[in-house]
Structures are given as structure tokens and as C-alpha cells.
């Protein structure tokens, strides 16, 4: 645990942008897609991907078979955005390659044979893409990816055909949410080939005001065009969020909410996941606006991950029920926000 993880510090435009992700979907030619694979074929794919990193050479990745991972750790991995919920549901015949800082991970046997993923703190599309395409090139010379000159990378779901690339940016948009213009924003970005969705909770006001915006179209657009398109939209959203925050800043009601939320987080003895997300959001905005100075964005980004149900159980080393987790969550938050 000595190695710092990518999410433990905030990055560029960290007041609004939590993280950046690039994901590449790749499949091996002449094999059924994972949904139809036999146990032997799943094993074969894992062997091929593990084999791409020779045993006698230093390897950037830790190689893990998901069936060996305890359930609580699977959940913690979902919370750290390393694996998808679907991947965690049935870990048999699945594997994960992961770097020490968890910034690069490769899911083997998810919806596609491979999902290469790079995570970065803050707004960092270019470097995330550079790293992803590098590992893609490395694997491309060692595995036979299914590719067609007309349709690009051939993926299980036709929505990923072409580049197979999904670029996503996780945003904290409390002021835009407060103003009630996310719905309108969602309609606008969908016309530009992008999609925006709440990260936690359903409905128009997701807990924590955390949103993920990603490119939707992957065929007939280059990776660079998709990234540039996403970047220019995200830049506009950042400007808009900041200007809305400035408008909120001087209202006594807003100031009250920031400090009231902080007060509860610093003193509560029980915190559900939802309540934590609802309260941490105004506190994060308060920190970004310089209203609170005894914690910082780095600490809050870590806390967003560490207060998850899976993370709490992983830290405890045992399964916990909801009531036990609420006690531990409140204790963790009190300690971090002291």
C-alpha cells in the first residue's frame, strides 16, 4: 500500500474535474465474444493475454485472476473504477492486469476480450490517450486483434465499432445541478455525439453532483477528433460551472449549507453512503472556492473512494453489514476532516 494511487491527488482543473478515463475495447480474432465463450476458451484468452508479458522480464502489471479475489475487494475495485459492476458479478474466467498506481488496468473477459483502461486524476485526456494507445500497440504486436479496414476494431457491441474508444471525464457539477440546467446540458451534448450521466443514484439530482461525460460515437471519427471534441465541451462546462459557483458564493444560504454539511461530517457517528455523498458535495465546492482551508481537494478525492462500502470492508478485512459500515464511514470521515 506504500505506492501512491492515481486518485489520491487532484489534477488539472481539479476544482471541477475529478478524473479522466480512456478505455479501449479490443477482441481477439476467430474466437467467440466473451458472452459465448466456453470455460476453456476463457482460459485460453487469459493465457494469451498473460503470455503477452513474458515471465522473465520485469512487468508493469500485477496479474490477477478474478475468481481468487474476495467479494469485498471486487466491490472496492468497482468503487475505484478499476472494473465494471458486470465484471464483478461473475468473476469466473476473468482476469485483471493492473499497475501499482492502478492508473492502467486491463480487464480480460468482460464484454470484450480486452478492455484497456487508463485513469488519470483531473483533466488529462492527452496523456491518458498516449498511455492507452501505447499499451494497445504493445498488445497489438503480440495478440491478433479483430480488425476490419471498414469497421475498425470489431467489438461485441456495435456501439463500440471503429476506434473502440470511450473517453470519459468525471465532473463535479454542484452549481449547475443547483441551477437545474443539467437536463438541458444533457440534450445539448447528445447532439454533439457525447453523453452525460449521473455517477451515483438515479434521477435528475444524483447524490454528490458527480457526472460522467463521454463520447458516444466511435465509427467514422478518429480518436484525436473524439478527444478534441470532448475536451472543448468539457472546457465550456468547466467555465459555466465556475461562473455559477461565483454567483452562489456570496449567498448566506449557500455559505450556511457548506458549513452545516462540514459540521455534520465532522461530528456524525453514523453516515450512510447517500448521506455522505450529499454532504461531501457542498464541502468540496467550499474547498474549491477557498472557503474552507483545513482540508484540500487531494484529501477529498481520496475520501470519495475510501468511504465506499467495498473500501470500508476491504480496510476492515471482513464483511460488514450496512449498520457496521455506517459507523466505520462516520469514523473515517471524522478522522479525515478533523
Amino acid at each position, binding site marked *: 500500500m506504500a505506492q501512491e494511487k492515481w486518485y489520491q491527488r487532484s489534477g488539472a482543473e481539479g476544482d471541477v474535474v475529478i478524473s479522466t478515463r480512456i478505455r479501449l475495447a479490443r477482441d481477439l480474432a476467430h474466437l467467440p*465474444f466473451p458472452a459465448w465463450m466456453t470455460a476453456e476458451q476463457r482460459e485460453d484468452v487469459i493465457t494469451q493475454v498473460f503470455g503477452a508479458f513474458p515471465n522473465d522480464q520485469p512487468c508493469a502489471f500485477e496479474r490477477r485472476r478474478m475468481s481468487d479475489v474476495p467479494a469485498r475487494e471486487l466491490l472496492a475495485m468497482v468503487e475505484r473504477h478499476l472494473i465494471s459492476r458486470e465484471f464483478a458479478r461473475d468473476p469466473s474466467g476473468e482476469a485483471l492486469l493492473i499497475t501499482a498506481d492502478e492508473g492502467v488496468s486491463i480487464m480480460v473477459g468482460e464484454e470484450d476480450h480486452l478492455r484497456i483502461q487508463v485513469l488519470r486524476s483531473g483533466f488529462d485526456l492527452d496523456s491518458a490517450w498516449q498511455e492507452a494507445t501505447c499499451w494497445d500497440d504493445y498488445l497489438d504486436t503480440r495478440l491478433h*486483434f479483430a480488425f*476490419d479496414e471498414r469497421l475498425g*476494431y470489431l467489438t461485441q457491441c*456495435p*456501439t463500440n*465499432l471503429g*476506434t473502440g474508444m470511450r473517453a470519459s471525464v468525471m465532473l463535479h457539477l454542484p452549481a449547475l445541478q443547483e441551477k437545474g440546467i443539467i437536463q438541458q446540458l444533457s440534450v445539448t451534448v447528445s447532439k454533439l455525439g457525447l453523453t452525460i450521466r449521473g455517477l451515483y443514484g438515479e434521477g435528475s439530482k444524483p447524490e454528490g453532483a458527480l457526472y460522467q461525460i463521454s463520447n458516444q460515437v466511435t465509427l467514422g471519427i478518429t480518436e484525436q477528433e473524439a478527444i478534441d471534441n470532448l475536451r472543448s465541451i468539457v472546457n465550456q462546462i468547466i467555465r459555466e460551472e465556475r461562473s455559477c459557483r461565483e454567483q452562489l458564493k456570496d449567498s448566506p444560504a449557500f455559505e450556511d449549507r457548506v458549513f452545516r454539511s462540514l459540521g455534520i461530517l465532522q461530528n456524525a457517528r453514523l453516515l450512510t453512503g447517500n448521506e455522505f455523498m450529499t454532504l461531501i458535495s457542498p464541502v468540496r465546492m467550499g474547498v474549491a472556492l477557498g472557503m474552507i482551508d483545513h482540508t484540500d481537494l487531494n484529501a477529498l478525492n481520496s475520501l470519495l473512494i475510501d468511504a465506499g462500502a467495498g473500501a470500508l470492508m476491504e480496510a476492515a478485512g471482513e464483511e460488514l453489514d450496512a449498520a457496521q459500515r455506517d459507523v466505520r464511514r462516520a469514523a473515517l470521515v471524522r478522522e479525515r476532516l478533523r
Partner: protein
Amino acid sequence: MLCDHCGKYAATTHVKKTVNGKTTELHLCAHCAAQQGIGTNFGFDLGDFWGSLFAEPAKRTQEDTVRCPDCGRSFREIADQGRPGCSTCYLTFYDRLLPSIQRIHGKTQHTGKVAAQADGTVKKERELQALRDKLNACIAEQDYETCAQLRDQIRALEQEGEA
């Protein structure tokens, strides 16, 4: 396939129109498609994709003898299961899947990164296209010296591999 409209560039957008039961196909290059406002809206709907597979009753009866050489599925089985069995399905049933793929992405020609084992014709075609675009610009600017150089480069690239 060349563009039906200008006849100069490769057709990358394929539109099917059915009027009074008569279906006509239009193949356009990216430029002409954009001019006609086709393929510029990026909206997609997954239900739409698979829905369209089911909505081809006339085609379902025919060609069901064709099967994917890798996974053995017929087009009908893919439609019934709601997803392809393997990557080769896309190549086997390319023509029948293309309208649905276009509905999702608005486009049908990959323009991104090219995998290592691709045979290189796409890379070459893109280089040629870039040179032809430059040539067009030079002609417009009456820069005939550069034109001659570009023409030589294009000819050399075209002849490459033919010998």
C-alpha cells in the same frame, strides 16, 4: 466504391430510401453527405439498432444458408440473440448489418487507428487522399510547381505494390 454525387471520392456514407416499396441506395463521400445533411447527427439508440435487425422480414427468409465460418451463426440467429457471436460475424453479414451500424454512428467507414495486422491498403488510401487534397488546393492556388511534385508522389504511391 465512388461517391454517387461527385464521383471523385470513396463513398463512406450509405443511405437506403424506400419510396412506394421501391428501395434505392445512395452512396456518398463524407463531403457530399455533409452537404446533404446526412450523417451529421450523431444520435443513436441501441434499441433502434437491434430493432432494425428484426424489422427485415423480407430478408429473413432468404440467405439463411449463409453461416459465419468462425462461429456458425446465421444472420437470423444473430438477430434473434440480439448480438453477434464473434468478430467474423460482422464480416460475413457486413451488408446486412451496415444500415444498423450507420444508424448508430452516422458513419460507416473507420477513420481511426489501424491495427498491426491490417494489410495496409487503408493506410495507403489515406495517404493518397491527403495528397489529392493537397493537389486540389495547389491547383486552386495556381502553384503549379508543387502540383507537379505532388502528382509524381501520387503516381509513385499508386504504383507501389502493383509491380
